[in-house]
């Protein structure tokens, strides 16, 4: 395992996403979600790599409407846009989702930044909700579906779920060294060999 900083996670993730042709704004969103997951001790690195593979092979959807069991919606890439859409249009959304923990990260981020309350459910129960800038979730719930319901949350009282607290100490995420190297190799694809004319910028 390797210690990495949150800044490195953000930076390498968005470059990796850029290397497979994902738009700048979306790549930055994906990087922010990764950083949030790392900061809150969620497994994230393998999920990013898997999302990137699925994106490259066309097996993941970026559409809110056109998603299926076999081609689910990419919460890792579009999660933030989805929560912004639900909040601004005040609509309920349901669909097949790949890796719902990125939805949790999206809910948490928009709750903190814009004080927006949302609730995430599977077909039977509540998985997570946001209230007063905090996120509450059933951390140990076993999810047997990839079909989810996400909507604005109007309840004024807390439900009986655990409160997820932000880590207070210096967060030092540990990652699998091989996965990290793979992410860095993807990021490397966005770099350009320096030309002679531009080398002067390095104080040559």
């Amino acid at each position, binding site marked *: 395992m*390797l*210690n*990495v*900083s*949150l*800044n*490195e996670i953000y930076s390498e993730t968005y*470059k990796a996403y850029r290397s497979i042709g994902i*738009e*700048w*704004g*979306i790549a*930055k*969103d994906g990087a*922010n979600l990764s950083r949030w997951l790392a900061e809150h001790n969620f497994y994230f690195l393998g999920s990013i790599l898997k999302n990137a593979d699925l994106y490259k092979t066309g097996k993941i959807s*970026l559409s*809110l409407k056109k998603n299926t069991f076999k081609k689910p919606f990419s919460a890792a890439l*579009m999660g*933030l*846009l*989805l*929560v*912004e*859409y639900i*909040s*601004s*249009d005040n609509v309920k959304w349901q669909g097949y989702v790949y890796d719902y923990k990125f939805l949790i990260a999206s809910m948490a*981020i*928009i709750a903190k*930044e*814009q004080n*927006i309350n949302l609730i995430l459910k599977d077909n039977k129960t509540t998985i997570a909700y946001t209230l007063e800038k905090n996120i509450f979730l059933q951390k140990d719930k076993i999810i047997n579906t990839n079909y989810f319901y996400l909507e604005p949350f109007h309840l004024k009282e807390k439900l009986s779920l655990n409160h997820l607290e932000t880590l207070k100490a*210096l*967060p*030092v995420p540990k990652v699998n060294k091989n996965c990290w190297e793979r992410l860095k190799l993807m990021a*490397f694809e*966005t*770099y*350009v*060999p*320096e*030309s002679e*004319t*531009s*080398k*002067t*910028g*390095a*104080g*040559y």
Partner: protein
Amino acid sequence: MNIYQSKINFNDDFPLRHPADVMKLDRLGSFHQTRLSFSRQLIDELISNNWKTEIIKWNINSIGTGNAVIKISSKQRIYSLVVFCHQINDDERSDRVIAEKWDMTFSLFLGIPSKEELDEMSKNLKIQELGRHLPKQLTLSRANKSVRVFNSVLNNLSEGKQPDKKMINNIGYLVRTTAVYGNGKFGIADYLPETNDNPLNKPFQAEMLTVYLIRYFSIELVNYLAKEKGKDKSITLSNEISKHVGVGNATGLGMAPFLINHQKLIHKWIQARETAISRVLSIKKLSTYNQTKIFNLIERAYLYTTQWNVDDVIQSKRINVLRKELKDISNNESLNDILNNDYPLQNVYLHFVNKISIETQEILNSIFIEPFPELLDDLTNEMGTDEQNTVAIGYKVNELIKIIKDKYSWALKIDIKKPDENFYFWYTSQAKLEPRLGATQIDHGKEKELPFDIPKQVQNALKILTKLPDDMTGAEAMILHPEIRNIIKRAIINENFPFSEIQNNLVGKKVRPIDLLRCKLSFFGATKYDPKSNLWTRITLFQGAPLPHQLQEENATEWLFPYLVNA
């Protein structure tokens, strides 16, 4: 002191300058150090909380290699600068960012490192970017000696003589850093702005503390080596000269994109500066004491410019103009009357603004702010922020179009089809993973460019938005067109944080990246900008600042415009 209890009669409703005037590269590239600069804030912190500096480990030999640990502590906090000095050949010493060896490598450490941690750092610090570093390291840095100055000072001191003041002033430092990394780079600690009790929570305070301690180390090192060489005959560097020794820095494009990538933060910095200017311009009456201070600062600024000499033709001309204009202002017969009447600083500014260069206008702003620290306390606490990750909801397409037309009119006027407006592209270099500027018609890699072509993105977004229903939400528009998310986010941030966007085409032929560097460096508190091209500059940090043993002396906070008498 709370500003509202201040005896200074300023008006907080006095208008700020317009972003369209301020956020132009020619003005940003004319900024000077102010009381708000981060190196000034650091010294204020060290003074107000009575920080103590102590060398707790000194394993340096007579040829200057080895390691040292310098502890700096307040009642609440302890940090240490870990230093490794290496022996390198003259031909290996380079300011180039691709250099692989340095005279000295450093890290600011949280607390005091254990033996195991020092051992780990001894392996990794010397290889800098190629190493993996500890989460308790707050910064990572390296420096080379200015060999000519260092050796001359060493030889003189060892023979019992003070060095030539002219040489000290011309160079300004004993060592020159080539990078000071912070905020999570290469495995070091992330910057955590939410920890309010941390004295380093304000922007770049960890980096500034690192450089300040490097400066102290460089003086201690030369004194030590002089003693080793000259024994009883040797002396130490005088307080006067020591105080004029700063730390050099060679800065290239690596730091330029920061101003584009951190919109809210840049807004905070510029807004704080502009608010400070507006507050002092709104002062109705100046005491005789403060009138004298303003006079003295104009004179001091003039003296500073007489010792600011560079080879760069453009900057040299600007300094000559600055020098002449400061002298003219200082000698102007009406200055005394204006300062003695109502709204003195505003009227000084209005009296001269149309007759002086932007460089002089901005040095006047630094002068005007300087005597009034009590008006700035709240502003220094407002210069940090978290960047926003989500796009503010509630905007409809017609509102986004209005924002673009209002806030980005400068970008809509640019003919992005002209080759000169696409002359450059920004990219990340493979060699050092740092930003560089490529020529579109010459260099490869345009397809991997960084998104700094703001006018092009703005114009494309406007085309897309005008084809969508007016009442569609911004979120839905971005779902349909993810390619506009980056610029829509920027535009909405700019709507709420008006100093967050530089209003020039950063890929156009006329762009001078050196202006971006100078703006950021002015917020660091750099002096003696010495451009080596349009792409990189040398500067000096902490020149004139009090040394650790001088921090509690009278007027220790006042070190704007360093000047060495008889140099």
